[in-house]
């Protein structure tokens, strides 16, 4: 064998260094039904459930000797970072994303199906994993599950001569009440929509269009149209209520807190959030109340909803452990701690996990479960939602007629289906 030259040694050293910079060696899959190795988790989370979550993770690490690496990210940055990680071929094992992102990732084969050896979907309320299922394959489990309801200010109702014990039950009544609750200068309104927010625009349109028997997107997800009788009716209805020019750092929810908006459509999380904003100023039952999502008179109940979900990367070398960890994080202690903050993990029996489960807000959530509607579960949901917000906002701002806005929506969405 020739003597190693200095150049040869340098080359060998450089190769070793480069090899060290590459991906880790694939970690061992659990063949024995026990979690192993290391799992990386990317998530966003509220400050309220953060400590409880950390504690749960530490318990998992201690109990199963699995190394869990957590990365908390601001909600607005998680999707972009995750996309970069997928494109670079180095995604985390576990991540928490919105239900609207699941179909696109699933279509691009980035997600691992739920491993039922590690996690049983039977533990969840029926229908709650539907938005995380694509082409009949479940890819995630729900956390922070939010069917919508109507929040209303009892004090504003009293001021306007309306019965604070009788919130509107139909969209027709919402319009009638809003007219009475809106001031001449429109600085104080009845119902305020969440303008500029794509997901909320899509949910609202879903409720209004489906409540009249229409469809935003056909069942196969191949055709979408707002230029229908139901679509035009929904846009016209929305443009007659609320004021898109009102602003608040906390958006429509801030306007509700300040009393400028007498009604908003929101999820179960809003009750505890309002309590934290100002317990003395806004008390449930006194200054504000909740009611089920309105329906069109004589129409079917449609409860628009969204959820966040846990997913696992298809390229994760440790999928069993990833699902095992998720199952642990969705367990009874987590259900109870989240419920205390108004965040719902829809595992069976969730309402019995804590005193808040028996509240009026949670009763409305439970009653609405059979009617929840997540809108179209298609890969182009993000674009669809953006187009929905464009249509709603342009009519509300007087930039377009409902027919023009619907035509623009149709042209935009046609390109992405």
């Amino acid at each position, binding site marked *: 064998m020739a003597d190693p030259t200095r150049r040869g040694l340098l080359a060998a050293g450089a190769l070793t260094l480069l090899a060290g910079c590459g991906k880790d060696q694939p970690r061992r899959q659990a063949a024995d039904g026990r979690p192993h190795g290391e799992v990386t988790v990317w998530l966003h989370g509220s400050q309220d459930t953060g400590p409880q979550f950390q504690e749960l993770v530490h318990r998992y690490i201690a109990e199963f000797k699995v190394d869990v690496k957590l990365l908390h990210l601001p909600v607005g940055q998680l*999707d*972009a970072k995750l*996309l970069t990680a*997928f*494109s670079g071929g180095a995604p985390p094992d576990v991540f928490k994303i919105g239900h609207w992102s699941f179909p*696109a990732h699933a279509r*691009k*084969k*980035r997600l691992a199906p739920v491993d039922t050896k590690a996690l049983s979907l039977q533990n969840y309320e029926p229908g709650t994993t539907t938005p995380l299922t694509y082409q009949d394959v479940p890819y995630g489990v729900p956390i922070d599950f939010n069917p919508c309801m109507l929040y209303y200010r009892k004090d504003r109702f009293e001021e306007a001569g309306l019965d604070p014990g009788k919130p509107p039950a139909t969209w027709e009544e919402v319009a009638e009440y809003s007219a009475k609750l809106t001031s001449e200068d429109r600085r104080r309104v009845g119902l305020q929509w969440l*303008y*500029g927010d794509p997901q909320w625009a899509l949910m609202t349109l879903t409720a209004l269009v489906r409540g009249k028997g229409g469809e935003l997107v056909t069942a196969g997800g191949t055709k979408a149209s707002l230029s229908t009788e139901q679509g035009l009716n929904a846009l016209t209805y929305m443009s007659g209520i609320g004021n*898109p*020019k*009102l*602003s*608040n*750092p906390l958006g429509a929810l801030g306007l509700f807190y300040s009393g400028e908006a007498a009604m908003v459509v929101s999820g179960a999380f809003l009750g505890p959030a309002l309590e934290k904003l100002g317990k003395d100023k806004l008390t449930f039952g006194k200054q504000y109340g909740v009611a089920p999502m309105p329906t069109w008179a004589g129409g079917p109940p449609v409860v628009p909803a969204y959820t966040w979900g846990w997913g696992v990367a298809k390229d994760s070398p440790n999928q069993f452990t990833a699902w095992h960890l998720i199952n642990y994080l969705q367990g009874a202690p987590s259900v109870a701690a989240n419920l205390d903050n108004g965040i719902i993990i829809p595992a069976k029996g969730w309402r019995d996990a804590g005193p808040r489960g028996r509240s009026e807000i949670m009763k409305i959530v439970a009653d609405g479960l059979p009617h929840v509607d997540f809108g179209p579960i298609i890969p182009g949901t*993000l*674009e669809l939602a*953006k187009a929905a917000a*464009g249509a709603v*906002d*342009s009519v*509300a*701002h*007087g*930039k377009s007629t409902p027919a023009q806005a619907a035509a*623009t929506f149709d*042209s*935009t969405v046609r*390109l*992405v289906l």
Partner: protein
Amino acid sequence: MSVLGRVSARPQATAGVALTLPVAVFFVVFWLVPFLAAIYLSFTDYEMAGTPNWIGLANYERMFADPGFLNSAWITVVYTVCTVVPTIVLALLVAVPLSKPGRLNRRLRALVMIPAVMPLAATSMVWVIIYSDRGLANTLLGLVGIDPQSWLTSSGLAIWALVVMVVWKSMGLFVIILTAGLQALPGEVYEAAAIDGSGAVTTFTRITLPLLRRTLLFVLVISVAGSMQAFVPAFLLTGGGPADATQVLPYYIWSNAFPYEHMGYAAAMGMVLLVAMVIVSALQFGFLKGGDE
């Protein structure tokens, strides 16, 4: 060349290649390759997964059927014209008095640079507060008896709110460039004009502006290119809203590339923007290059 010269030239050439190689590699890896890749991607359906499929001109055809692209292109035109013209005019009006010598002018020149050196993220937050319901803008309007306005939530006002912030932010840099240009103008021309009885306005329009043509061209080209590429102000101040009223083309390209993952389509729109910028820059050079001598 002597034998000695040829011998010494070779190591020099080697050293030259060695010294320029890192820059050349940087240029190729971080500029040329991405640029060529973007051209290629613009003819594909690449969506950040799988392999790109060649689809010819389909992305370019799609633009003309896409209301979002047409809206953004128009907003970019409005935004560019409405930020560039007032910025340069105001910068020139401020630069003329500030170009005169004096301790006070030196300090004022430093002051006008403050907005330009502040981070855009920070200034955007400041302007969000200024434009809020009870912010400075509405307080000032209230002093003259005008009702408060919804600056950032009104589709008719948001673009102008954005323009005002950008003009305020970018004017300082142009003041400094134009001041430098003005200070370099030959003093004897002004002395001759004064002897001939030329007034201030005549001197400015007949002497200062023509002599400043080269500096103005520089300012115009970089400000137009900057405005056509502007993404951050709209992203931070209005998020492209309300009702897409401030969705400039770079913002639309970004949203197609990243949230929606239509990388091929975004690359095609990027190419169209590039061609538009090249054409506009060429027109500016053609318009202002004459009369340099």
